[in-house]
């Protein structure tokens, strides 16, 4: 006899599932108060997340089992036609390889987020998503009313690619379990993350942890002394303060 033959039985069956499960969430940073955490999710291979995050949010992405591949697109939350510009993100800092201090720039000369910590160093701003990641990013974007044309070039964390003098691309893989990257948002952003294969590295993907917490004080720390970065901070602060009333003291 089925236990879901009637609406009453089906309701009881559905409601019993949450209690019976054990969600394995991300490990939370021990030095953080639970109340400061804004988002915590373990993203399975092929999965994605879509999150609107305030300015001054610190996002930790962790390659828990050593083969995560986090494809990222950031859009300015209140005006998503301003989004990550991967070309400016490599051209303006004169650097193709992402590491600590690297800004993720929008097409409007502003910083959406800065890469503020990195224990991996194996990342890729050149190759973009493979078919699975592209599909996942489109799905993630659709939940914010975004269309495929809004999904521009992306960056990938935890899978490196290097360029030879003749321009040839060589994938350099990941760095092993536990590698993590932290981003600090400078503006409110919609963050789309897909955890799926890198197009030049078919290593099966493993879980990706994403934890975000409120850290507005971190915006006072200077992440880079480059003049281009300093001017990007100026542009970003100016735009933010122009759009928001001064907070009551």
């Amino acid at each position, binding site marked *: 006899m089925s236990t879901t033959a009637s609406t009453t039985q089906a309701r009881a069956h559905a409601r019993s599932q949450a209690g019976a499960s054990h969600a394995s969430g991300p490990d939370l940073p021990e030095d953080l108060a639970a109340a400061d955490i804004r988002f915590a999710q373990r993203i399975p291979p092929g999965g994605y997340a879509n999150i609107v995050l305030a300015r001054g949010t610190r996002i930790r992405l962790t390659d828990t089992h050593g083969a995560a591949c986090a494809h990222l697109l950031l859009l300015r939350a209140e005006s998503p*036609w301003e989004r990550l510009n991967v070309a*400016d993100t490599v051209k303006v800092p004169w650097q193709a390889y992402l590491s600590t201090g690297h800004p993720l720039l929008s097409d409007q000369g502003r910083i959406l987020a800065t890469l503020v910590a990195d224990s991996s160093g194996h990342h890729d701003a050149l*190759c973009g998503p493979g078919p699975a990641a592209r599909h996942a990013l489109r799905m993630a974007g659709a939940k914010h009313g975004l269309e495929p*044309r809004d999904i521009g070039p992306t960056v990938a964390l935890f899978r490196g690619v290097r360029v030879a003098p003749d321009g040839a691309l060589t994938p350099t893989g990941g760095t092993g379990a536990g590698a993590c990257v932290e981003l600090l948002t400078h503006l409110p952003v919609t963050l789309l993350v897909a955890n799926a294969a890198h*197009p030049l590295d078919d290593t099966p993907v493993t879980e990706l942890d994403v934890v975000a917490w409120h850290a507005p004080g971190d915006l006072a720390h200077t992440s880079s002394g480059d003049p281009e970065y300093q001017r*990007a901070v100026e542009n970003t602060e100016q735009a933010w303060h122009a759009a928001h009333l001064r907070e009551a003291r």
Partner: protein
Amino acid sequence: MNALAHTVLLDETVPARSPWSAIVPAGARLDIIDLHGNQAVDCLLYSAADHAERYSAQATITAQRNIFLTTGSVLRTDASTALMTVIADEVGNHDTLAGACSQESNTLRYGHHTRHQHACVENFLAEGMKWGLSKRDLVSNINWFMNVPVEADGTLGIVDGRSAPGKKLTLRAEIDTLVLVSNCPQINNPCNGFDPTPVRMVVAQEVPE
């Protein structure tokens, strides 16, 4: 033997600093001629039938496993559909990492005094509007005749060009392709030899004699 003749569909000179666009029909060729040498030609491609199918620098370099565009490079969409193929190139390599100059990125690279200088994104927006394209349709582009090496430590930058007066490259359209161009107006880096100049665009269709 079937000799081939060419019917010239269009032969235009793009003034310095100006935008240009045209649909190149499937099978037709587009010659881009660097009339005076070292003139960056910023370029985006869209399927004429569906502008959501557009050039992807990332898909293009991933498929060929090389960052430089030259003879044999297939210019692809996100879904890896071929839009155009480079069938001849007198220069050797062209950039598709460094994107287009914009008023906004100019403020970062050269200072706030450059805010109101003309820039490629201005050209892309103005010319794209004629076809119903908007800011959301702009992505990482091709920079014909622009030289952007990546060094071993990842340092990348626009350096002196490898082109010269009269050098030419030829693209073949694999499907009907909308070609959107900004004849780069940048005066703060060597991509135009600090002196923007005109380029010539010739669209020709092969016809059996």
